[in-house]
């Protein structure tokens, strides 16, 4: 006795005429979603499968760094700023050292500056590899993550040899560096550049040339360049939208004006472009590292006569550096004391995430992670 014979089966009555009335649905993503690299919550409003509004809810990792910095001296602040963007710790501390040196008018020994560049670029590679691996993971490909961590481990070992840290390096000092490089560091670094460059080809095959990856990312979540600038978006996200803005190039600090490198840009600013720019930025960083190897002069790595307590002179200044994820700047207001009166941390992830309410509406739920993951951010960097 089965239903489905002639004249049987379920009878469906469509009530009313015209189109079906639908209801908006509010969906909560996070704060523990793996694609958020920390704890970011996004409340999205859906009309069927389509996102109509998105509101990131941030602050779960707000640690009050800016307040704490007002009660710490500059030596301590260098250790403190290591922690907001934990994936580019060296880039963060570099900014603080540079701004205090700029205000005090210090001439840092060239050897220290070149080593800083070397470290900053290795840190950038370290950071980008993380996102290279995790973005694949978010789209369902697990292998790139393992590959990325293989390279990351090697680079961390290298940086540990010089700094003693694997995540928080605290290698910079106002006026130079904590220590000189250990023996054999540059040879190791040279070998590693070759190794990483060779292994990068794996990612090209695994992700950039992957049909599934392309289908999921090309044309998804496009961001026009002028909107990006309006929101203060910087770094690989801005470059993917076709704007070659990179303070290493436009306002060179350290000795970036003495090395050759390109700023890769995208065309459409979609998820694929963002990922592609990130990938090509690694290649450029490796190119810079190779040039730095031959240019590090002999000499001291820190100014010989640094005062015990460092006091930035009275005044205010904003200094920006191109950190891994974008423009990391510090706005320092000093009253001439050993503590800053105000240290505003302008972090790239904050501005980049503030653009999400613009980026998500209009896309489908299955594309959500492909877009959210391609706005490379670190939640510690958003919340500070």
């Amino acid at each position: 006795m089965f239903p489905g014979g002639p004249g049987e089966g379920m009878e469906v009555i469509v009530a009313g005429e015209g189109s079906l009335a639908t209801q908006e649905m509010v969906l909560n993503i996070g704060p523990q979603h793996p694609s958020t690299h920390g704890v970011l919550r996004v409340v999205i409003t859906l009309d069927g499968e389509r996102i109509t509004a998105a509101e990131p809810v941030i602050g779960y990792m707000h640690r009050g760094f800016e307040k704490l910095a007002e009660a710490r001296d500059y030596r301590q602040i260098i250790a403190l700023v290591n922690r907001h963007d934990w994936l580019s710790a060296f880039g963060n501390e570099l900014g603080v050292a540079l701004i205090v040196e700029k205000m005090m008018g210090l001439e840092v020994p060239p050897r220290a500056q070149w080593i800083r560049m070397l470290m900053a670029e290795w840190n950038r590679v370290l950071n980008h590899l993380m996102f290279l691996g995790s973005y694949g993971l978010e789209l369902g490909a697990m292998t790139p993550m393992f590959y990325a961590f293989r390279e990351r481990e090697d680079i961390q070992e290298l940086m540990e040899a010089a700094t003693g840290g694997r995540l928080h390096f605290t290698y910079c000092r106002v006026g130079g560096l904590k220590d000189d490089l250990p023996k054999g560091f540059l040879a190791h670094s040279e070998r590693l550049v070759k190794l990483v460059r060779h292994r990068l080809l794996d990612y090209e095959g695994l992700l950039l040339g992957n049909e599934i990856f392309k289908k999921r990312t090309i044309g998804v979540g496009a961001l026009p360049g002028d909107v990006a600038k309006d929101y203060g978006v910087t770094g690989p996200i801005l470059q993917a939208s076709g704007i070659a803005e990179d303070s290493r190039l436009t306002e060179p600090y350290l000795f970036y004006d003495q090395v050759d490198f390109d700023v890769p840009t995208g065309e459409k600013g979609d998820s694929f472009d963002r990922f592609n720019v990130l990938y090509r930025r690694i290649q450029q960083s490796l190119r810079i590292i190779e040039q730095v190897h031959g240019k590090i002069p002999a000499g001291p790595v820190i100014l010989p006569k640094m005062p015990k307590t460092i006091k930035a002179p009275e005044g205010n200044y904003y200094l920006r550096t191109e950190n891994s994820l974008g423009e990391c700047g510090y706005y320092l207001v000093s009253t001439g004391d050993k503590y800053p009166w105000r240290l505003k941390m302008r972090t790239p992830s904050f501005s980049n995430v503030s653009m999400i309410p613009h980026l998500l509406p209009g896309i489908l739920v299955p594309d959500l992670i492909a877009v959210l993951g391609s706005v490379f951010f670190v939640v510690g960097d958003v919340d500070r």
Partner: protein
Amino acid sequence: MTPEELVAHLQEADASFVERSDIQFGQASIWVPREKWQACAAHLKDCGRCHFDLFTFMSGVDWPEQNEIEVVAHVYSVRRQHHLNMKIRVAREGGTVPTLSEVWRGANWQERECWELYGVEFEGHPHLVKLLLPEAFEGFPLRKDFLLMTREVKEWEGREEPGEPGSSPRPGRVPTAGGAATKAGEH
């Protein structure tokens, strides 16, 4: 434009834009009167010579001695490659600043952050609610009279910083009774 040219250009464009200006370490700052705050911002963005298209950040600086809070907006021009600090001073109590979120969209979050940390109201802001802090948080943590939590528990033997001990009305405690009133407790 060099910082000097930039300030001169703005004074030329509208003399009332620039109340006061200075150049420190090669970076220009202008203080804008309240009624010209939005007009000046619009000019900075639209004028072909200024072309400030990248909204970098906005924040505050507390000056308790003058009983004022200085709101700073830093803008940068990708095409012209120059920087400018746009500043405005408001009273610590009841100070308001017209919103810039219609000029640069990035100002939306920056103003929300400045509002919750300094207590400066942004007039005409579309969605002025807490951003980083929990809903029920009281006080404005980046003001100098708001003590660090550790200093509240135990007085600092060295310098009383920020704010003198005893001057703080013990602000900033999140009510924890019933486990409510934190962001994590919302859902």
